């Protein structure tokens, strides 16, 4: 359902992603871990075309594009199939929670107003913020804003939701409510790719953990295997460091 073939991204001379091959099943929950600066964000951003990949092909659902031949329409179409949740929420500051969620349905999918807002209200219910429909981002806590950020991604009805460190900007008190919502989505078998340092989330929720280093997939497998029986020395070193601060 998602297939990356030889996907590469260079920034000038720097090779950030080096011919990544990856296939993800519908309903699969994939957690991506790895040291800072190894291209985790870049990978997600390439799938959403927030970065133009340098080479390779990508398939999401029934759309396959050669990244170098992707037309304007292909890029828009790929973005509509992939939803993004940002580390700093990135809500539209001039719109209420309800409008943030409905925006995509109204503007991109051209739904009639009534239908779009009705759907947005259903999503607000699911994310537990029905009472915040008319609140603006500036008046919401970090946890509430990130839940709206996830709600906005849910509204897209996308084939996959890409999470880039969704809890890293949050005060510790709000982390659980956001992880809780992500677990709820996972239990509904929403396909997700999650970059996170929350190792307990990876252990409890992921079907597969992927360790990336230096623009390569170094090792991947079920969380039990990766956490308790890592093969590659780089994976071992990384896990030793991170588990010391965030034990599983």
């Amino acid at each position: 359902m998602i297939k990356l073939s030889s996907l590469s991204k260079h920034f000038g001379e720097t090779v950030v992603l080096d011919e990544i091959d990856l296939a993800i099943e519908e309903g699969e929950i994939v957690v991506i871990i790895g040291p800072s600066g190894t291209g985790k964000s870049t990978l997600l951003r390439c799938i959403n075309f927030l970065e133009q990949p340098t080479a390779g092909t990508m398939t999401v659902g029934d759309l396959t594009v050669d990244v170098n031949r992707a037309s304007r329409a292909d890029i828009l179409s790929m973005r509509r199939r992939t939803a993004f949740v940002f580390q700093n929420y990135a809500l539209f500051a001039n719109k209420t929670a309800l409008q943030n969620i409905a925006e995509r349905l109204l503007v991109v999918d051209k739904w009639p107003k009534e239908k779009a807002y009705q759907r947005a209200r259903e999503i607000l219910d699911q994310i537990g913020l029905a009472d915040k429909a008319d609140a603006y981002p500036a008046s919401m806590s970090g946890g509430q804003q990130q839940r709206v950020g996830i709600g906005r991604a849910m509204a897209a009805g996308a084939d996959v939701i890409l999470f880039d460190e969704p809890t890293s900007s949050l005060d510790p008190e709000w982390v659980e409510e956001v992880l809780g919502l992500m677990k709820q989505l996972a239990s509904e078998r929403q396909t997700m790719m999650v970059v996170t340092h929350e190792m307990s989330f990876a252990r409890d929720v992921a079907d597969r953990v992927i360790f990336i280093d230096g623009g390569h997939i170094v090792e991947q497998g079920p969380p039990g295997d990766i956490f308790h029986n890592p093969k590659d020395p780089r994976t071992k070193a990384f896990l030793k460091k991170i588990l010391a601060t965030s034990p599983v």
Partner: protein
Amino acid sequence: MDVLNVEYMLGLVPVLLRYLPLTLQLAGIGMVLALILACLFAVVRVLRIPVLNQLTIVFISFFRGTPLLVQLFLFYYGLPQLFSALTVIDGITATIMGLTMHFSAYMAESIRAAIVGVDRSQTEAALSIGMTNGQLMRRVVLPQATRVALPTLMNYFIDMIKATSLAFTLGVTELMGATQKEAAGSFLYFEAFIVAAIMYWIVVELLSKLQNYLETRLNKAYNR
């Protein structure tokens, strides 16, 4: 000191009021044209469109760097000399041209700063859900930039209303020109100009009220 001739002043009010609409028209038309031009300049600057960007920088620099009165004289006396088809250019047209170019140069910079100031991550969020560049500008960037730029733009509008008084040097009988004529006839300069000053003042005060109202409305989303 002689006592003010209050009777003369009161009698002057209806006379001068007849010229107020022209003053407001000069400023109103100048403001609309300046806004359009300023938005075009700002977009050229933000997108760094080659050639146009450099031309815009020079244009803005010139019209900010020289006095408005000099610019008005350039248009009024200079243009007919350059283009013989324009044997005369009337004072009203020259004034509107001068006000438009002068103020668009200032306004372009505040609009540009306001657009650039919109949080880059919101732009990415809009793109990530599949918006086109046009949708992103209309729905996310411009509404927020408007709010940031509004106080400055209103201040320029107020400046422009006052700057219309320079039109009398081009022979336009607007509020200032009319006052000048009345005063020259009666020799009651102080009385005449006080009445004119109060009229400008009232117009500006009304605009400030409008500005406060608009700012409160636009800021609604950003208060905790």
